[in-house]
C-alpha cells in the first residue's frame, strides 16, 4: 500500500512535467494547426540551456529557467517567422515533414555541440526529500511540479486577460475575422510559436533536474507531449497538467509492476488507445 502511494506520488510529480510539455505543444497545435514534431527537440535544447547555465555560470537551475525560456522564445519566434511561416498554408503533411526534419537537424546539432553523453542537472538539493506519512516526497521533483502548475496558471491568465492573449485566441477561432479586427497573423503566429517553445524550454530545464538529458530524448518526449495534449484537451491549460499526471502515474506503475523496459510500450499503447478513443476532442476546443 505504501509502495502504491509512493508510485502515485512519483508519477504525479513527473506527470506535472509531462503536462508542461503537452501545454506548449497543444498551444501551437490549437492556434497554428501545426503538430510540431520538433517539440521534443525544443524541450531538449531548453534542458541543455539550463544545464550549461548551471555548470558553466553557476546559476541555480530554477533561476536559470526564465533565461532559458527567453532564449527558446526567441528561437521559436524566429523559426515560425522565417521557416514554418513559409509552409503553413500547404497540406498538413508538409508542416509535419518540416518539423520532422527540424527534429532530426536539432538533435544532430545538439549531439555535435553537447556530445551524446547523458547529462543530469545536479544542484546540491537534488537528493533532498522529506517524509509525508508513509511516503517520501523528493524535493526537486516537487518544485518542478510546482513550477509546471504555476506556468500553466500563468498561461491561462495570459490567454484570457491580456490583449495579446485575446488576439491569440481570436486567431485560433477564426483567422479571417481576427485579421478584420486588426490582428496581424504573422506576428501572432510567431508569438504563439515562441510561447510554445518557451514552455518547452522550461519543461526541458525541469526535466534535466529530475531525469537525464541526451540529444535524442526529443522523439519520445514529442510523443508524450502529444498524448498529454489530447488527454487534457487543448482548451484548458490546467486540464493538460491533469493529462500529464495520468500518463506519469501509468508509467511509474508500469516500471514497477511489469518491467522498466516496457515503459515505452505502455506509453505507446496509451497513445494509441487515447488517439482511438478521443480524437474528436481536439476539434471541440473553444
Amino acid at each position, binding site marked *: 500500500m505504501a509502495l502504491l502511494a509512493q508510485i502515485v506520488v512519483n508519477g504525479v510529480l513527473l506527470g506535472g512535467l509531462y503536462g508542461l510539455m503537452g501545454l506548449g505543444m497543444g498551444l501551437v497545435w490549437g492556434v497554428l494547426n501545426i503538430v510540431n514534431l520538433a517539440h521534443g527537440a525544443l524541450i531538449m535544447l531548453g534542458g541543455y540551456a539550463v544545464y550549461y547555465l548551471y555548470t558553466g555560470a553557476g546559476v541555480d537551475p530554477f533561476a536559470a529557467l526564465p533565461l532559458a525560456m527567453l532564449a527558446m522564445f526567441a528561437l521559436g519566434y524566429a523559426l515560425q517567422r522565417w521557416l514554418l511561416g513559409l509552409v503553413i498554408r500547404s497540406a498538413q503533411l508538409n508542416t509535419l515533414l518540416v518539423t520532422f526534419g527540424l527534429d532530426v537537424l536539432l538533435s544532430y546539432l545538439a549531439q555535435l555541440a553537447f556530445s551524446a553523453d547523458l547529462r543530469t542537472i545536479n544542484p546540491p538539493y537534488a537528493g533532498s526529500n522529506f517524509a509525508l506519512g508513509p511516503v517520501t516526497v523528493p524535493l526537486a521533483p516537487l518544485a518542478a511540479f510546482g513550477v509546471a502548475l504555476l506556468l500553466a496558471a500563468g498561461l491561462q491568465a495570459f490567454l484570457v486577460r491580456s490583449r495579446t492573449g485575446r488576439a491569440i485566441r481570436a486567431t485560433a477561432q477564426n483567422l479571417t475575422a481576427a485579421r478584420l479586427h486588426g490582428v496581424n497573423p504573422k506576428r501572432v*503566429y510567431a508569438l504563439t510559436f515562441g510561447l510554445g517553445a518557451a514552455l518547452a524550454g522550461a519543461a526541458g530545464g525541469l526535466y534535466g533536474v529530475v531525469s537525464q538529458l541526451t540529444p535524442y530524448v526529443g522523439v519520445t518526449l514529442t510523443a508524450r507531449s502529444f498524448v498529454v495534449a489530447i488527454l487534457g484537451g487543448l482548451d484548458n491549460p490546467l486540464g493538460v497538467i491533469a493529462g500529464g499526471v495520468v500518463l506519469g502515474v501509468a508509467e511509474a506503475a508500469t516500471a514497477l509492476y511489469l518491467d522498466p523496459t516496457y515503459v515505452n510500450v505502455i506509453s505507446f499503447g496509451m497513445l494509441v488507445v487515447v488517439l482511438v478513443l478521443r480524437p474528436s476532442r481536439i476539434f471541440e476546443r473553444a
Partner: protein
Amino acid sequence: MRRLALAAAVALLASVPWMGNETLVEFGINALLLATLAQAWNVIGGFTGYASFGNSVFYGLGTYGTAIAMAQLHLPFAAGLGLGAAMAAACALVLGVPILRLRGPYFAIATLGLSAAMAAIFSNLEIAGKNIGLILPLFRGERLFYELSLALLVATTATVAWVASSRFGAGLVAIRENEEAAQVMGVDTTRYKVAALAIAAVFSAVAGGIHAYWITFIDPASAFDSTLNVKMVIMAVFGGPGTVLGPVVGAFTLSAVSELLASRLSTVAAGFYGLVVVLAVVFMPRGLLDLGRGLRRDGWRYFAQNVRRYRL
C-alpha cells in the same frame, strides 16, 4: 522509349557487381535496400497521404523473421524471408485497423513510437535472443545479395507502377486528396488504407530480411533503427512523393551525397538528412522530378513560386 531507357538502366545496375569493386557493391546494396524502403513508404505516405514515421518496424520484423527462421529453426533463407514478410503483414493488419482510423497528425504521431515499442518487445523475447540478438549462418555472396536487392527494388517499383495506374491507386489518391469525398464516392477507405500499409510492410520486411542475412548479425537496436524512418521518408519526399520513380531517384541521389559527405566527415550525414527535408519541403514540395520540369519552365523563379504559394 521510356521503357527501353528503364530496362537499360536496370541492366546497367545489374552489371555493377561484375565491374565495380567491393566498396561499390556494398554501397549499392545499401542504396538499393534504402530505395526499396522509400518506394514502399511511397505507397502509404506518397499515394495515400498518411505520413508513417514507423515503417522501420516492418523492416525490423523482416530482419527478425529471417533471423529466427534461419538461426533458431534452421530453415532456408527463402522461408526466412517468407516468415518475415508474414510477420510484417500481420503487424500491418493488426495495427493498421486501429491506427489507420486516425487521420493526419494523429496517425503520424501514433507511428512515431512504433519502433521503440517493438524494440522493447523483441528485447524481452527468448526466441529472438533477448537484447543480445541473433547470429545468422555466414554466407559470403555479395553479388547475390546485390542482385536480390535489385530484384526487390524492381518488384517494388513495378508494384508502385501498378498502383499508380490502377483503380486501387486512384482510390488511395482520392483518400489523400479528400477522405470524406472518397468515402462518399464508395471507396472502402479502411480496407484501402490497410491494404496500402500491408503492401508497404511486405516489401520493407523483405528488404530487412536480405539485410539481416547479408550482415549476419541482428539485435533490437539495429533491427528497429529509427534513423531508417528518417532516411526512407526523406528520400521519398525529396524524390517526389506519389510518383513512380521519384523515391528511387531520391534514394540514389541522397545515398550518394551522404556517402560523399560521410567520407569527408563521418558525423555530418545525420544532420544532412534533416536539412534536406526542411529545404525540400519549403522550396520543392513536389520533389526532384517536378524540380526538373519546373526549372525548365520557370528557371529560378520556380523556388520563389513554391514559397509564395504556401506562406502566410
